[in-house]
């Protein structure tokens, strides 16, 4: 793909990139704490990954290899659109292979394959404030974070257990980062939460519309909220992937007919393909 002329490398001007990098440095210095930043209007709509795109634009170098996933897949339309955006404005190499990427921008998933110290995971975040459902005012939630007043969040978990016998949050499951800040991990399934903990890769979170950046530095403690007698549980569909036979990966449920037929396949398309290339075969393949 040819790059377009008239725009700076990776679209944003260097001043803006510096501003974002400063916010990133602060974010890394205070794990889990939301840093306000002068989010710019991007040529993609707010809510469609503008926070992640601005972070990626600010950290991308000419030698980087970029992978973009949405719902775990490289081929979902918004992932395609964002990958093309950077191919066009930065001319960087892109890949669908998790192990070949230096920067991975993601919406709603963490890749199944473990990430390394040489990789950065950039999350698109629609709502950075984990307390928003308890308290809509940002002035008040900032105060709650400053004072580490998170009792109300546990009240919500208590209510879930009382009502449903278990915590009913299945995605964007709140976590404590470095035993200090309550953080929204973005709408990844709770299944992915354990991967946040002690991850060797740097994790950056960008919320463009809400104008917040936060981070989890490599090898940081990240704990999903729970009770001692109701420990955190990560759920997945109790099946094996129909294509590659994986029985530990997160699965998508595909409706194959109108008679109750279902097919379960890996949501991480690269993971699935890699396994199939290695000879693993699922029942539906």
């Amino acid at each position: 793909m040819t790059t377009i002329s008239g725009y700076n490398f990776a679209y944003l001007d260097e001043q803006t990139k510096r501003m974002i990098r400063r916010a990133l440095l602060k974010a890394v210095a205070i794990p889990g704490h939301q840093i306000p930043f002068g989010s710019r209007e991007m040529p993609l709509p707010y809510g469609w990954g503008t926070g992640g795109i601005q972070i990626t634009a600010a950290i991308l170098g000419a030698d980087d290899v970029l992978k973009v996933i949405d719902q775990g897949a490289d081929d979902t339309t918004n992932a395609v659109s964002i990958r093309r955006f950077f191919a066009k404005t930065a001319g960087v190499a892109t890949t669908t292979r998790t192990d070949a990427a230096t920067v991975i921008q993601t919406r709603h998933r963490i890749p199944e394959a473990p990430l390394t110290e040489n990789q950065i995971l950039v999350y698109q975040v629609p709502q950075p404030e984990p307390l928003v459902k308890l308290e809509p005012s940002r002035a008040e939630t900032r105060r709650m974070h400053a004072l580490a007043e998170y009792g109300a969040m546990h009240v919500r978990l208590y209510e879930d257990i009382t009502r449903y016998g278990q915590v009913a949050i299945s995605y964007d499951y709140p976590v404590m980062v470095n035993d200090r800040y309550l953080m929204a991990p973005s709408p990844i399934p709770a299944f992915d939460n354990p991967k946040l903990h002690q991850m060797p890769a740097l994790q950056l979170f960008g919320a463009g519309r809400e104008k917040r950046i936060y981070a989890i530095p490599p090898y940081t403690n990240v704990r999903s909220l729970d009770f001692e007698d109701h420990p955190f549980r990560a759920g997945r569909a109790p099946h094996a992937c129909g294509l590659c036979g994986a029985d530990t990966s997160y699965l998508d449920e595909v409706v194959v007919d109108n008679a109750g037929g279902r097919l379960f396949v890996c949501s991480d398309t690269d993971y699935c393909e890699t396994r199939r290339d290695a000879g693993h075969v699922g029942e539906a393949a």
Partner: protein
Amino acid sequence: MAYVAVKGGERAIDNAHAWLAEARRGNPAVPDLTLAQIQQQMGRAVDRVMAEGALYDPELAALAIKQAQGDLIEAAFLLRAYRTTLPRFGYAAPVDTAAMALRRRISAVYKDLPGGQLLGPTYDYTHRLLDFLLAAGATPPPAAEAAEPAAAMPRVADILAQEGLIETHTDTGTEPGDLTREPLAFPAGRDIRLQALARGDEGFLLAMGYSTQRGWGGSHPFVGELRVGEVTVEITPPELGFAIDIGDITLTECALVNQFKGSKTVPPQFTSGYGLTFGHAERKAMGMALVDRAMRAEELGEDATAPAQNIEFVLYHSDNIEGTGFVEHLKLPHYVDFQSELEAIRRMREDTK
């Protein structure tokens, strides 16, 4: 049964864009719309897109309207995205609306005043009857022109201020904030609030302003003055050290005169709400002024209980570029999260058996 993975996102996008381009053009037998036609004949649309797109450029606004098939929020979004890429050379000096070259100026609080009432090009007293002559393409006869140039037209707020009857605002010397560089933070000063409203959605400001009139945070507004015209924009490049004129822009300014404030010891004064927008946009400027005044409730010692008085609520929801993005993002795939909800609800149903 063989399962075909959902591939082909790239091709689907390309095909969708090609179809969009074709639909945008419409029937090729109908002449292509020119930017000059949009700029000349759809001026109010151009003005709205410039205001909400926060970029004063009628030609680019016309292009955005054409590209967006007349979807004005989409067009404003195009301008916003474009302005991100523009280098910032400096800040203009404050414009002087008292020195405006007026095409319209009305005051609802005085029968007559220096410079008089100037009705100008307004829909206000038109009968809203569809005009079939317009459909037939009739050219209107030329409008009458004034025999002599208009007299000076001082701002009504300044007239009231001479008697000390209305609150005045003096230059504190502090630089106003810049919402396009720094994110919104609270408490948000009036400089930031007015900036947010100036690029806010016209429909939102109309509804919020309207709500104050219906008792949700009323402030007894009078239209002190509404003026529309051209002002000169000046900048002072540091290398020159003096101001230079970089062009004229059309603005609409609305100054409200609102309920007074005072006490036994402090003489009462009228308070004010203020609206200013790019282009000719009276509804927007008036809505903005009503909402500006509503958001000053706490500052003026009034109870802040209505939605329009809640600064955080108003400022976080006035921007239609943010709003449209987040509402429409629900169209994006969410099947991973939905899958986790499916598993959770199945597990819970199992537990209750």
